[in-house]
């Protein structure tokens, strides 16, 4: 046998042994994993049994059947799903003769309403603050710095109570609330804005105008040809004006009554305060994310833009921000999730969000454990939806291979 042959046989045996060892390792590995899973399942089962037995001992029935009961209480604002006519569910104002499940849906609706608005507004405000902190203007830079510092370092709950009792409830009462420019009413009972509504008649002229309005609005949003945005916005305004002038649409102005205003659309003081608090708070964190990302950008990007004699504004809009947004999106996602969870503080000012309505339900029905399970599951699902939306947007902005 040559040395070569020996080593070949040796090598074969070795690779056999290696293979069987790998197999053994894998079996052991999987067995341990299976064991852990089984253990967790058993422990959860024992825990569930113990909870159920403990509750039964105290005479509490664990059941979700209370969801079908009539609620019996009112909710100050919010819409819920009703079966309506036929199978298609329709939106309707919640009333006390609807079911407990409808009350939960109203709570989810109110939470989502505030969260969505807050996500949009805090992104805009936060980006502005973040860019503002790097402004060359001393006043702007310091103003943004102090706003961000102050808001980030005080508790959100205290900010919320401040916005509600010290700002929103200091608006004039409905009786003396002046109608501001454009029919806007700002009062303690809420902020009322005029709405546009379809007057009913359909003519060729109004159809053309509506189509033109939509096309220009879409044009303004997507800006297909650079610099067309302003023209699109102007066209949309002119078309809308013509629609109203020709009677195709009417403006529904709010009218102040004894206790509240009718007509138009309104934001309740509770929602206004919660929105303000959450938006300002979240924006200050977003500002820090944006500032950090801009700081991390190579200085050469600014210098290159400068050497092309681009203005600062153009540099920020066309060179800095497009690069920054690729980086910050995942951090924004985290911010959106914590913002959504923070809306649960609405209870402090009486805003009927999901957590607030849970409190009422738990007290009127006595099923607080079942209720909190529903509430936790709802927040979990909301967070999942947000993070998958952000993931999707991130994938769109950063295709695989560029950066992830």
């Amino acid at each position: 046998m040559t040395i070569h042959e020996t080593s070949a046989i040796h090598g074969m045996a070795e690779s056999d042994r290696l293979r069987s060892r790998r197999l053994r390792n894998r079996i052991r590995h999987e067995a341990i994993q299976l064991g852990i899973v089984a253990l967790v399942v058993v422990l959860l089962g024992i825990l569930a049994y113990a909870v159920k037995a403990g509750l039964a001992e105290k005479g509490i029935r664990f059941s979700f059947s209370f969801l079908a009961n009539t609620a019996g209480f009112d909710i100050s604002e919010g819409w819920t799903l009703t079966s309506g006519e036929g199978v298609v569910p329709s939106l309707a104002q919640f009333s006390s003769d609807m079911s407990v499940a409808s009350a939960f849906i109203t709570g989810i609706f109110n939470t989502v309403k505030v969260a969505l608005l807050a996500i949009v507004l805090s992104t805009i405000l936060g980006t502005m603050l973040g860019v503002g902190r790097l402004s060359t203007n001393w006043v702007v830079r310091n103003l943004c710095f102090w706003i961000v510092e102050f808001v980030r370092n005080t508790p959100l709950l205290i900010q919320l109570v401040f916005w509600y009792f010290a700002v929103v409830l200091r608006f004039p009462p409905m009786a003396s609330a002046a109608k501001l420019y454009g029919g806007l009413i700002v009062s303690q009972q809420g902020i009322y804005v005029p709405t546009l509504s379809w007057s009913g008649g359909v003519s060729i002229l109004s159809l053309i105008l509506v189509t033109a309005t939509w096309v220009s609005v879409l044009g303004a949003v997507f800006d297909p040809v650079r610099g067309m945005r302003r023209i699109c916005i102007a066209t949309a305004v002119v078309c809308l004006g013509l629609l109203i002038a020709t009677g195709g649409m009417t403006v529904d102005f709010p009218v102040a009554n004894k206790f509240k205003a009718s007509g138009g659309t309104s934001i309740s003081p509770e929602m206004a305060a919660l929105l303000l608090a959450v938006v300002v708070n979240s924006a200050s964190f977003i500002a820090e994310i944006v500032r950090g990302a801009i700081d991390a950008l190579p200085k050469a990007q600014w210098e290159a833009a400068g050497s092309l004699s681009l203005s600062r504004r153009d540099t920020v809009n066309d060179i800095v921000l497009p690069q920054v947004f690729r980086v910050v999106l995942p951090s924004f996602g985290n911010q959106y999730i914590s913002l959504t969870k923070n809306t649960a503080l609405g209870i402090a000012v009486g805003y009927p969000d999901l957590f607030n309505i849970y409190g009422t339900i738990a007290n009127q029905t006595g099923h607080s454990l079942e209720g909190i399970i529903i509430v936790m599951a709802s927040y979990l699902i909301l967070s999942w939806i947000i993070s998958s939306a952000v993931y999707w947007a991130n994938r769109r902005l950063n295709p695989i291979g560029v950066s992830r």
Partner: protein
Amino acid sequence: MKLLKILTAGVFAGVAFTAANASASVLDTVKQRGVLNCGTDNTAPGFGYLNTTTGQMEGLDVDFCKAVAAGVLGDASKVKFITVTDKSRFDAVLTGQVDVVFAHTTIKPARESSIAIDFLPINFYDGTGLMVKADAGIKEFADLDGATICTTQGSATETVLAAAFKARGWKDSKVLTYENLEKLFSALNSGRCNAMSTDRSALAAWAGNAPKPADYLILPETLDKSPFGGFVVANDSKWRNALRWIEYGLFQAEESGITQANLAEKLKSEDPFVQKFLGSNGGGYGKDFGLSDDFIAQAIKAIGNYGEAYDRNLGPKTKMYLDRKGTPNALWTQGGAIYSPLWN
């Protein structure tokens, strides 16, 4: 494997512990602990209120807590006040955070049938009322069509208002709920709420405690009755019965004319009824309840009889003054509903 054994052993021990714990009466737990955990409000003047000038808890509910501590532990100071809100009070009892709650709670069937608590006897008869700012031009409930009415979250008032709106067909009226009476009152003052609705006694108390009581008007209507009672965890009759009879003892003491001032003298009384009632000559009622013989005497020593406690907290000398005469809160001998079963 060792870990698994420890874990399962731990879980089984936990289950066994909860089971063992559930069968013991709260009465034994309280006696063992030596302190009564009593759930009260601290924002309801006259019932459970933290007096900011003295730093002391005061009110009718607070006095009942002290009476229970005196009756069970023989010392009125062995009570720890734990603040509960309208929303948290039931869970506080269910989770064992407090032993008993006295927090102006309305007795309602749904609360005993599905929340798994047992109510104690009614210790105050109240009704749901409404309060507005005097300058708002509102004189009666009918003026409030379309208004925003505020109340506390989780209260019985919430359902009473919803039913009242339904009955009158008011579509635009809204109920706004706040965490506690303090926020409710500041929302009324700011003008956010056109009316504040809760039990009439609480309305009187908040108006009475305000810098200018004349700024507020309590509307004449009473929307619904609201009898107040303390409550304990369900299915613990040993604990519930002990507390029930301490409460009845306070009612009976007023009827029999036994007061904080004349207690020492009554303890020497030769009257066999008084002797047995106060447990002064051995053989009181206490033993059968698992309490000391003189448990009623201890409770009276702590807070006086029911009438004395009422006068101290809600009587003519207080800012909120709620007259007992002609109301169910008067003793049954004066046409009221405060009534103790027989003591013989």
